């Protein structure tokens, strides 16, 4: 070994290899500087960041299609949709038939022979993000609705809403498909959870099954290595609200998942791509979506459920805040009035 080191440090050899050593040393100094030029890159060197929503989405049961609790009810609780029909009958004089629609197997909401994982997890996820948690039983027009009933109705109502959808739903287990890319996933976390304080939902199962859960926070750490210019190794722990609870559950049961990925960064410090690390290649979100409040429900799921009447139960009247039909609520008189309400002077653009 000593002989080897002595041979290596031979002055002649050292002189010949010096330019190579110098170039490598120079590269080590320049590469990180070159990558960071022109942009206040927040992913320089090693670092960490975290963000959480001010209000966590609430946990609720996922209303399995196979079990059919929405149709059959469960121990000590009548079907929430039967109660809804009775309430509407009392208020309007007609039975809307929400329970009959749900029970009809042609509509796919109640499927005793279907897969065990299929349910209303997307409806619960959207409702948990968009609606305050019902925390007290209410009696409306002579019908009592427990908190579980109210969560059931909200989950059913939010089955159909406009969403911002990222990634592709997958029916196979091969990792090389069009799942959400990690750079898009990272952007959505930062943009929504940290910047806009807006909840988002992820399908955590990257195979054929769909398990939607609301995301309410994340903690991320990143590392850069000088010998891998243009790459940032990121480890992100994501906080989810869980639906593995009984219908009567109140509050938020949580779980976390940790994802590993590499972000590609260009010379201007911009994130231009990303790949899942082998540790997360078989365990990463399939797709991510964000429920929006700017499009009314179109009645594509249970058309017998009327949002205004659901709100009459869960909020004691018309929803004052987020509502599926708010975008169409006729408050201002003209499109230009809407612009003024939003702080835009129409004269600046149109005249």
């Amino acid at each position, binding site marked *: 070994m000593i002989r080897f080191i002595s041979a290596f440090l031979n002055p002649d050899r050292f002189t010949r290899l010096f330019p190579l050593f110098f170039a490598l040393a120079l590269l080590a100094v320049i590469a990180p500087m070159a990558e960071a030029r022109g942009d*206040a*890159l*927040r992913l320089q060197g090693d670092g960490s960041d975290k963000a959480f929503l001010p209000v966590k989405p609430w946990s609720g049961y996922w209303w399995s299609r196979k079990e059919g609790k929405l149709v059959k009810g469960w121990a000590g609780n009548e079907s929430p949709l039967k109660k809804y029909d009775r309430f509407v009958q009392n208020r309007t004089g007609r039975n809307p038939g929400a329970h009959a629609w749900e029970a009809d197997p042609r509509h*796919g909401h109640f499927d005793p022979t279907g897969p065990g994982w299929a349910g209303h997890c*997307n*409806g619960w996820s959207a409702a948990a993000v968009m609606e305050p948690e019902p925390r007290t039983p209410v009696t409306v027009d002579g019908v009592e609705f427990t908190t579980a009933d109210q969560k059931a109705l909200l989950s059913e109502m939010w*089955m*159909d*809403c*406009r*969403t*911002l*959808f*990222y990634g*592709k*739903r997958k029916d196979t287990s091969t990792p090389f498909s069009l799942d959400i890319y990690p750079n*898009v996933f*990272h*952007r959505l976390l*930062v*943009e929504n959870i*940290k*910047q806009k304080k807006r909840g988002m939902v992820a399908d955590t199962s990257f195979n054929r099954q*769909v398990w939607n859960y609301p995301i309410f926070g994340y903690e991320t750490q990143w590392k850069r290595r000088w010998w891998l210019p243009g790459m940032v190794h990121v480890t992100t722990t994501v906080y989810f609200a869980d639906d593995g609870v009984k219908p009567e559950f109140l509050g938020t049961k949580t779980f976390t998942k940790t994802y590993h990925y590499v972000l590609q960064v260009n010379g*201007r*410090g*911009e*994130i*231009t791509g990303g790949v899942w690390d082998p540790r997360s290649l078989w365990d990463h979100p399939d797709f991510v979506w*964000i429920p*929006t*409040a*700017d*499009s009314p429900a*179109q*009645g*594509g*799921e249970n058309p017998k459920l009327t949002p205004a009447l659901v709100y009459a139960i869960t909020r004691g009247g018309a929803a004052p*805040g*987020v509502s599926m039909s*708010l*975008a*169409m*609520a*006729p*408050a*201002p*008189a*003209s*499109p230009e*009035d*809407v*612009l003024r*309400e*939003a*702080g*835009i002077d129409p004269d600046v*653009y*149109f*005249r």
Partner: protein
Amino acid sequence: MNRGWTWVIVMAMVLFMAGMADCSEGFRPVWQVGQTWTVETSYKRLADGSEAWTTPVRWQFAVRAEKEIDGIDCYVVHVTAADLPEAKTQAVLCLAVSDLRPVQVIDVAAGPDGRAEATTRRLDGERLTPLLSGESAIPYDLPLFPLAAETREGEATGALVDGESANTADGLTFVDAVQQSWQPTATGFEVTLRTAGPLGTIIQTWETGRPWATRLTSDAVRCTLVAGQ
């Protein structure tokens, strides 16, 4: 050189320049202030991942003015819900008169308290950026113009442009590649925009003489131009 060869060369140059002019102009819709058109839009429903679409919503596009916005002469297009003008969801599109590239975009939608909120995007002129509707419910996506008929009708390959769209969040800039390709058809062009946004891959059909894409399909919305010449 004899006179015959001179004429051949002159004619060849004229034809070449005419071809160049045609190529450089290419196709783009022609608008006038006061012009309106209506686009009918259906949205994909999330449940079951099925091919189920909502009942259509109609969006009215109106070219309200030609004004200088951020130092660039722009058409200002106001998009509103056709059947419910007081709806909170709107957009104001400021597009360069020269080539319809986006200069400034204002998206308006109901906020958490139900009041209208505006989000203004000023597009980086240094980036080759098609207009993407992103999070807006209004499908106002536009390709980069002009679309030049560089290939003969019926050929399998079309022209290709690599653009990009940038989003800044909390001091980080995320740049997504947008690949635009197009192909001549009997009546115009079919344009494909491959994006990383919520609409995914967008395919538009453009016809000569029509102000907007006569048809749009994507992973999340599908649209038809129902009124407007």
